[in-house]
């Protein structure tokens, strides 16, 4: 494979301006991420200390193999909800290494609202368990939750993908012979009691851990019985009387060393074998991405320059280099794993859609995972293109993409608008992981187009009623809509709503993809099969 020849001039004024703008954005991003992970009101820190409990980050440290990476998902989940008072949606999820095995981790963060389940908490946990199911990853649950947040119970409890789905997914994991262990380091009340009880193994920490369907206050209200936490559902009772708990741990340290020992008893399933090459760092510096991503989101840039700073050795074998040139397709390696890359270099036309559909089939044929780099404003519109069957060719691309059996990974590198988001493996299309860059935008259309469309409808409606509007009045209608749309399409809104698995510093993209691909190979890859291609 040949190295991509970069044409970037790192001394150019444009490059420097872009670099400065991205650095500024990243400063904000890293500060927000740090705050979501570590900054808590003093009273919450004091409470944990009083309860003699470790924080969730210390618990992860005790659990994970030292010096190994932890791919954390959706650190900024719920950052635009609940007035920002529920950082990370009160839960930490991710893929980490325990005793040399890749595991999915679900850990309540009791320093946030006592680890209560908010609607976004449930969404984040369900997503993590979906990741575990898709990639056949064992799960470690670290339970410490006050239970469902009652004022928002309708957003936590009843629907298909809410609370019940957490337990349903646990059942499906067990049914698929994927092991789970729960470390109970706080209360598991009501529904929460099913997390440790549906796990194959569980450990209860003496003094702090407890499992019950109804806590002491509820029992008193329901039956008048007065009973303490320890007698009702403490470590001693459950591990010696009820058999609900398997192991009693004297301390947090004891609990996590037991957990590690249990994980090391599990059978290791051999990973799926795909083509690999020896690991090579990119030839071009990944941080140069900061200067390549234009500060104005509308400005076009060559996605090959991005690939050159993500893939091994900056080497790329391009497929159909002279056809459908707004869609770049080709093979490369990431962390030594062979991947097929689809990257947008402009609008999707008929030829670029067909090229993508064909290339996706090639990758399925030789079991090559797919990586999508989105910078897509949509499929081309207009009479000429409709006559050529742009909708039909787009459908072929969707049929190939959605029908893929190989693992897929998506990076929303800049724009992600309209049906282009679908074709390029947006959230609904089962990417094993999907990450966004901080300046990226996602929406059915751009903020300006959406605001203009909505304002035009309103203006015409008023005109029909005989009202002539001045420039100021039109602006008064359009500007608030525009403001709202601009905020709605931002990466922070997406990540708050868990439409992605997190925002990435562009320079970290390579490692996030490497870990994702490695984890995905715990699941087998099926033989290729598709639906009907509209020819």
């Amino acid at each position, binding site marked *: 494979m*040949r190295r991509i020849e970069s044409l970037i001039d790192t001394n150019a004024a444009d490059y420097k301006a872009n670099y400065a703008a991205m650095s500024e954005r990243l400063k904000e991003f890293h500060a927000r991420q740090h705050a979501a992970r570590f900054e808590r009101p003093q009273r919450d820190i004091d409470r944990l200390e009083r309860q003699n409990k470790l924080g969730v980050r210390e618990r992860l440290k005790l659990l994970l193999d030292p010096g190994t990476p932890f791919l954390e998902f959706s650190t900024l989940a719920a950052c635009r909800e609940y007035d920002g008072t529920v950082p990370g949606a009160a839960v930490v999820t991710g893929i980490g290494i325990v005793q040399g095995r890749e595991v999915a981790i679900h850990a309540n963060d009791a320093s946030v609202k006592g680890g209560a389940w908010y609607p976004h908490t449930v969404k984040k946990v369900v997503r993590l368990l979906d990741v575990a199911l898709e990639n056949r990853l064992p799960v470690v649950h670290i339970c410490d939750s006050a239970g469902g947040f009652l004022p928002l119970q309708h957003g936590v409890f009843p629907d298909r993908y809410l609370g019940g789905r957490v337990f349903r997914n646990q059942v499906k994991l067990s049914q698929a012979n994927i092991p789970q262990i729960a470390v109970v380091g706080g209360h598991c009340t009501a529904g929460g009691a099913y997390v440790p009880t549906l796990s194959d193994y569980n450990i209860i920490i003496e003094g702090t851990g407890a499992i019950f369907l109804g806590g002491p206050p509820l029992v008193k209200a329901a039956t008048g019985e007065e009973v303490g936490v320890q007698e009702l559902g403490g470590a001693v009772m459950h591990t010696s009387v009820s058999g609900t708990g398997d192991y009693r741990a004297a301390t947090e340290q004891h609990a996590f060393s037991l957990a590690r020992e249990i994980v090391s008893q599990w059978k290791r399933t051999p990973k799926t074998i795909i083509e690999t090459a020896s690991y090579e760092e990119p*030839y071009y510096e990944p941080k140069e991405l900061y200067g390549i991503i234009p500060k*104005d989101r*509308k*400005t*076009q840039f060559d996605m090959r320059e991005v690939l050159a700073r993500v893939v091994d050795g900056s080497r790329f074998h391009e497929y159909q280099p002279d056809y459908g040139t707004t869609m770049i397709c080709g093979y490369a390696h990431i962390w030594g794993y062979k991947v097929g890359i689809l990257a947008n270099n*402009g*609008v999707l*036309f008929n030829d670029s859609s067909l090229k993508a559909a064909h290339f996706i089939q090639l990758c399925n044929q030789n079991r090559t995972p797919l990586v999508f780099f989105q910078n897509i*404003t*949509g499929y*081309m*519109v*207009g009479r*000429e293109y409709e006559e050529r069957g742009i909708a039909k060719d787009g459908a072929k691309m969707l049929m190939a993409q959605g029908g893929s059996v190989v693992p897929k990974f998506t990076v929303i590198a800049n*724009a992600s*608008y309209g049906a282009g988001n679908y074709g390029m493996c947006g959230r609904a299309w089962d990417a094993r992981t999907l990450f966004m860059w901080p300046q990226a935008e996602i929406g059915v*259309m*751009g903020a*300006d*187009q959406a605001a203009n469309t909505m304002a035009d409808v309103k203006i015409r409606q008023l005109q029909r009623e005989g009202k002539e509007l001045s420039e100021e009045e039109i602006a008064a209608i359009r500007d608030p809509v525009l403001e709202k749309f601009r905020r709605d399409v931002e990466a922070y809104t997406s990540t708050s709503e868990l439409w992605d698995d997190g925002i990435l510093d562009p320079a970290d993209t390579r490692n996030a993809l490497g870990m994702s691909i490695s984890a995905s190979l715990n699941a087998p890859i099926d033989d290729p099969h598709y639906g009907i291609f509209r020819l």
Partner: protein
Amino acid sequence: MQRIFQIDGEETECWLGHDGSRFVLNTPNGTVACQLDPTGLPGGYTLRAKGVVRELRLAVGPEATFVHMNGRTYEVGRVDPAERLAGSDGGTSDDRLVAPMPGVVVSVAVKPGDTVEEGQPLLVIESMKLETTLTAPRDGVVAEMPFAEGDSFGLKDILAQLAPEEK
């Protein structure tokens, strides 16, 4: 895969294989069995081929490997066969910039009569929410810029024309 090495400027085609016990170098003039063992010195190796034993030192760089042997240094570069065999790009660059899609001209950077270099921005167009900078396909003189800022254009309209190249 065939390999092409450049040894002190001269190209040699060969392919290194392994017969299970030792390396075999396949060359256009036949095959040569060879063996390379580290001596323990930094970059030091003993080469055995055709009954000859030579001490050598290797320094591996990103673009070339340097072999020090018999008091001489040979520069051995790896040539990518697909790139080497693709030959020179025979296409002549076009005199015209043709619209890749319908859109609107955002700005025009040059006027007829201007001398431009290959890659120099000529105009910026917007279509489908994307601004694209169109650049000169070669060095030359601008003959025509048919559209002004704010003008709409259709698919395959000519957006810029360079004066024909003088032979």
